[in-house]
């Protein structure tokens, strides 16, 4: 990897990385799912993780988000070595994941989903602070331009794109370091995909790092600053989006272009 040349193009070019992965390896029994993976993620940049089915993208997301501990290697969060006992620890440290299945409670209003598991309470009776939740949610959806009828709307009455918007807004609210997006537009139509992409692109300005998994190379090229390619658990390479093209990335995904020496 030619790591020093691959700093993000836009901001904090010389800042230290938010998340630094060094030599991450993951074995399930005798099977190596991820081998020797290293990547730095900086605040304000969007990195795409691409690869064929079974390349190890989801495993990597699970390692970063604390679901699986890595078998080997070091994870540093803002320069401090970390080892997450489970997903809730990673979340407390400012890493949020938006899963394919969205993780929204369908019959609850938007604002309750926004604070699910971390509801603010007030008074000696520890009564739910609905007003506070509603106001914070309204402010957030306004800032992010998530178009929903109301923050009191029930999730199941929203469209797929609106739900994805809510899920990303929630991640944005809680993430202080990093957001992982796992196929955020896989189930969406053209117009809704465009809206969600706009939302993802706007996260750059919020000074957090974004790692996005996507099967759509068009989307990857529209959104990302850098592209990291995985094949069968091996890291094939990292490219700056502006310095590469689809042919090279497809070649790296399919194996026509072999991995560069680490």
């Amino acid at each position: 990897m030619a790591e020093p040349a691959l700093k993000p193009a836009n901001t904090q070019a010389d800042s230290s990385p938010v998340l630094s992965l060094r030599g991450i390896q993951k074995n399930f029994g005798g099977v190596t799912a991820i081998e020797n993976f290293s990547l730095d993620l900086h605040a304000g940049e969007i990195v795409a993780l691409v690869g064929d089915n079974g390349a190890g993208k989801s495993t990597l997301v699970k390692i970063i988000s604390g679901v699986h501990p890595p078998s080997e290697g070091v994870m540093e969060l803002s320069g401090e070595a970390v080892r997450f006992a489970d997903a809730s620890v990673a979340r407390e440290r400012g890493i949020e994941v938006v899963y394919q299945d969205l993780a929204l409670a369908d019959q609850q209003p938007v604002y309750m989903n926004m604070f699910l598991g971390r509801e603010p309470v007030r008074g000696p009776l520890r009564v739910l602070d609905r007003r506070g939740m509603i106001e914070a949610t309204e402010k957030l959806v306004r800032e992010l331009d998530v178009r929903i009828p109301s923050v009191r709307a029930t999730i199941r009455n929203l469209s797929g794109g609106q739900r994805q918007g809510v899920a990303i807004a929630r991640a944005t609210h809680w993430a202080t370091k990093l957001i992982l997006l796992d196929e955020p537009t896989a189930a969406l139509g053209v117009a809704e995909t465009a809206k969600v992409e706009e939302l993802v692109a706007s996260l750059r300005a919020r000074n957090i790092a974004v790692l996005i998994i996507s099967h759509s190379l068009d989307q990857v090229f529209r959104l990302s600053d850098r592209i990291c390619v995985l094949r069968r658990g091996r890291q094939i390479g990292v490219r700056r989006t502006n310095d590469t093209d689809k042919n090279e990335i497809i070649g790296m995904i399919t194996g026509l272009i072999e991995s560069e020496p680490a």
Partner: protein
Amino acid sequence: MTVLIQPFDKPASRWRGLAGSPQIASLVILAIVLVGFSLARPAFLSPLNISNMMAFLPELGIIALGMTLLLTAGEFDLSVGATFALGPVIVMLLAQNGVVDIGTALAIGLLVCIAIGAINGLIVTKIGISSFLVTLSMLMIVRGVALYITQGFPLKSWDQPGVFVTLLADSFELGPWRLYTSLWWFIALTALAAYILNFSKLGNWISAIGSNRNAAVARGVPADAVKIGLFIVTSVLAGLAGMISAFRISAASPVAGTGYELEVIAMVVVGGTALTGGRGTILGTIVGAVMLRAIRNGIVLVGVPGLAFNIFVGAIILVMLILHAFIQKRSFRR
């Protein structure tokens, strides 16, 4: 960029929202049922009849409160009727045979209920068997234990007054009505359940677990612990209701509460709580409990033949559920 947050609190839409909410629909139907019976039979409103209904209401109502929370979390409990019998049977057996004093006997009875709920909850959450099957088996086990330890006979009456009897089953006159202390228990427990479901973090967790368990877990909600806790609460409330009932009629029968599980679930669902979880209402459950009690009482008063009685109860419950289905569909389209 424009911001599209439509005002949601316009009076008109709020009214439409209220009329479309399951609780209010239930309330309207309850009013119709009550007025209907009163017009058909003025005796329906006599102090004696109302006192009569109020004596029975809290006993099923208390179980219904627990069942509401459990159903909202997406599970249900068919063993409540059997627990309703076993709780007081254990208390009476221990107290009457002089093994322990009545206070200790009550505590042991409640501990058995906690154990029943904990076993239900652990098997449902940790082994992953549906609550229908687990609690159906538990229904048979608990009922069988109650029958076996009593040899099938009701236990002789407990007639020594004491602080616990006063606390659970004393009666008092309020104007023309004769009421039981169980009504206070019911009111206090209703307030507690309403606080939990509507105003506490736990309530949001319960609804979220019933709505999408994986989503709740992904946000760090301890879904299994909440469910096990709710199974325990439901069993304890069923046992408590059984003890209240046993003290009121001064007898504990091993076949008491037969069929209560379905009656209680009917109350909860008629009130507007979703059988599939995710949406629960304590107000609706109160309405449902009063409605089923009133229907059972009123149908006898208007002179429906005894054997035809269940036809009417079943039909009225079915009508209520159809109505809720329509309301649900309409709110979904909106």
